[in-house]
């Protein structure tokens, strides 16, 4: 079913863009010729008709298979039954029927010379509806993808769809007329390529989002394929313009140009089919990328060590200078006599190679080891459920080496050549989730490369491993908080379901935008009056619902909330009573208060000042321990 959708979507796109390009060619480019033979006119009319027919037939087939897929229909009669619903009552069906209607009217109108322009406009409108039929149509609230698709498709049609008509014309027209048509093609083609490139980049930013998404997902790979084909077509277009058209004008040789245009048109077909495939694939931003390289870019090393920093800067300067000299020799070397220019160029190549070989290896200081999972993010949303789940799994799976309190001093630790990692150390929070999950799944070698920590892939479900990571992070924070210090890296407040009076929130995360005061067992009498001044609004949340009078605005609805916050605070659940956690409007944990300990706040004025201060100084560019769920 999925393959049929990809096929019919691609064919529909191909037919539509070919129709659009052919009509655009006849209206905008062909009139540049002084004399147009009647057979060419007839052939172009046929080409437009074939494009429209393919678009209409493939479009109807696409509607059918998509209906069967949406309705989960098992037979043809069930599909036909669901057809009116899809065609009349869904965004996809309405948009596709409208597009096919526009194409039908356009195909009729292009029969007559004086209505051809109207046909062209209708075809452009049909192509511009692309956004409503693809991923952009579901991006609620953000219309920029819709607009960029509305420009991308007509531009692609006017350029790629016009290549076949151009090929036919170069074959038939007198060479002077063919050259005139090619010259008219150039500015329109350049404008289209610029629009395609700019809108393509916009869409990639919206639907791929990151380099790992581009290199590590099927969606990203199709985009790379499409960009490669686009670059190939662009090179051929330049070849046509800069060299082959001149040959046609000077010597009347059209064969090279014809072959080149034919190859470019083939590339165009493949690009359009790849576009159809892309529209049927899951966008990279929704997928966990598989990083293909053994290293990733990182400033960690150079930020830590001034000598390394100097080393890298010197290398970058030297290589940069050699590269600039090389480019100069290539571009301007031709101004000198042949022998001088040759030696200048070869000298610059040698210099660049030597400098790169000498200084290049030091640039590896800008990278750190990476794993296929390096850029994957946790699916747990750092929930209290997940932390408590990890807490239950930790003793049986981790404590023998890492110790019950995580300090790397479990009973089995003594027999190991390397001391197991201290999970309460600051650097644990600096590792991204994707690297921690790799070590949990595949184990970790000791300093001599022998297996030290076993891998748990196959032993524990992946979901349990993510939960262990959540527990280790919360526990690591607890090791700091119990000593009255904040964790060494920014930490999100663990998420839990809650119920609120007068606030539309089902989980803690829905309260973004408010400062939050999370209370562990604080009753109405001891509750501080909440600061509510200017643009600062503070919501109070009880970790568990208090019997009788509701002291706080919201109260937790999960039994795990209390236990997980006890882990976070570094205490036993029974000792958590009286603790308060202050969370900033972006969800970061910013302060913890114990009634009888230093730090925190002791008066309402102090609390108000603290809330104002965290709202005025948001955490920016936090990384490592960030548990954001991307979607």
């Amino acid at each position: 079913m999925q393959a049929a959708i990809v096929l019919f979507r691609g064919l529909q796109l191909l037919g539509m863009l070919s129709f659009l390009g052919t009509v655009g060619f006849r209206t905008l480019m062909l009139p540049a010729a002084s004399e147009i033979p009647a057979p060419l006119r007839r052939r172009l009319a046929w080409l437009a008709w074939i494009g429209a027919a393919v678009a209409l037939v493939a479009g109807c087939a696409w509607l059918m298979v998509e209906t069967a897929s949406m309705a989960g229909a098992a037979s043809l009669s069930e599909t036909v039954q669901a057809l009116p619903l899809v065609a009349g009552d869904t965004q996809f069906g309405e948009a596709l029927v409208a597009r096919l209607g526009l194409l039908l009217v356009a195909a009729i109108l292009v029969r007559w010379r004086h209505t051809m322009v109207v046909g062209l406009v209708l075809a452009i409108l049909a192509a511009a509806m692309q956004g409503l039929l693809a991923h952009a149509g579901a991006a609620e609230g953000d219309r920029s993808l819709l607009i960029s698709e509305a420009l991308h498709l007509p531009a692609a049609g006017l350029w790629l769809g016009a290549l076949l008509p151009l090929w036919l014309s170069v074959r038939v027209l007198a060479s002077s007329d063919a050259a005139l048509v090619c010259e008219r093609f150039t500015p329109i083609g350049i404008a289209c390529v610029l629009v395609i490139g700019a809108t393509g980049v916009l869409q990639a930013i919206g639907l791929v989002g990151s380099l790992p998404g581009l290199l590590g997902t099927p969606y990203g790979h199709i985009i790379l394929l499409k960009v490669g084909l686009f670059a190939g077509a662009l090179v051929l277009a330049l070849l046509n313009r800069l060299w082959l058209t001149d040959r046609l004008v000077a010597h009347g040789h059209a064969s090279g140009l014809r072959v080149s245009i034919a190859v470019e048109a083939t590339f165009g077909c493949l690009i359009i089919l790849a576009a159809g495939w892309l529209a049927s694939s899951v966008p990279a931003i929704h997928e966990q990328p598989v990083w293909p390289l053994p290293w990733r870019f990182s400033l960690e090393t150079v930020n830590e060590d001034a000598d390394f920093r100097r080393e890298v800067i010197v290398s970058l300067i030297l290589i940069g200078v050699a590269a600039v000299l090389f480019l100069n020799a290539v571009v301007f070397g031709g101004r000198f006599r042949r022998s001088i220019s040759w030696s200048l160029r070869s000298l610059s190549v040698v210099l660049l190679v030597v400098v790169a070989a000498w200084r290049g290896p030091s640039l590896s200081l800008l990278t750190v080891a990476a794993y296929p999972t390096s850029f994957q993010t946790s699916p747990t949303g750092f929930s209290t459920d997940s932390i408590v789940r990890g807490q239950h799994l930790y003793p049986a799976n981790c404590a023998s080496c890492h110790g019950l309190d995580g300090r790397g001093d479990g009973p089995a630790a003594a027999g190991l050549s390397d001391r197991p990692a201290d999970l309460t150390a600051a650097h644990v929070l600096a590792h991204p989730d994707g690297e921690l999950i790799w070590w949990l799944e595949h184990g970790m070698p000791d300093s001599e490369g022998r297996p030290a920590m076993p891998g748990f892939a196959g032993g524990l479900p992946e979901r349990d491993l993510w939960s262990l990571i959540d527990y280790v992070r919360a526990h690591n924070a607890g090791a700091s908080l119990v000593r009255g210090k904040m964790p060494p890296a920014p930490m999100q407040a663990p998420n839990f379901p809650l119920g609120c009076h007068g606030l539309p929130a089902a989980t803690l995360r829905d309260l973004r935008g408010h400062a939050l005061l999370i209370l562990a067992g604080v009753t109405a009498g001891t509750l501080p009056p909440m600061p509510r001044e200017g643009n600062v609004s503070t919501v109070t949340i009880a970790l568990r619902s208090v019997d009788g009078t509701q002291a706080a605005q919201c109260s937790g609805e999960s039994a795990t909330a209390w236990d997980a916050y006890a882990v976070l605070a570094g205490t036993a659940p029974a000792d958590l009573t009286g603790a308060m956690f202050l969370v900033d409007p972006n969800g970061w944990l910013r302060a913890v208060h114990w009634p009888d300990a230093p730090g925190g706040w002791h008066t309402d004025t102090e609390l108000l000042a603290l809330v104002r201060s965290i709202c005025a100084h948001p955490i920016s560019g936090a990384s490592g321990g960030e548990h954001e769920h991307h979607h």
Partner: protein
Amino acid sequence: MGPPAFAHAFLEHATPAVGSEVASAPKELDLSYTEPVEVLFCHVAVTDAHGASVADGKPVGRNSNQTLVVPLKPLTPGTYRVEWHVVSVDTHKTEGHFMFTIKP
């Protein structure tokens, strides 16, 4: 919590929340998705511990069809299972399931 759904329209939050324990019986189930959905082709099953359906009618759309609302019959304390299948407006299908509990 259901399996992670890294596809198009996935569940952003639910009321009652995924895996939550609530004190009073809700009159409806709200499912909010990351993208608008085609309500006609969405199916939500809410069942009690014996597998009997407790939904009181088909889901209706709210909030520009980004939220599905399922009316519920009067519920007694116990654990309920929600299983959803939705089609986003860009025609992609996703599904998931979760439980919630009403405290005695």
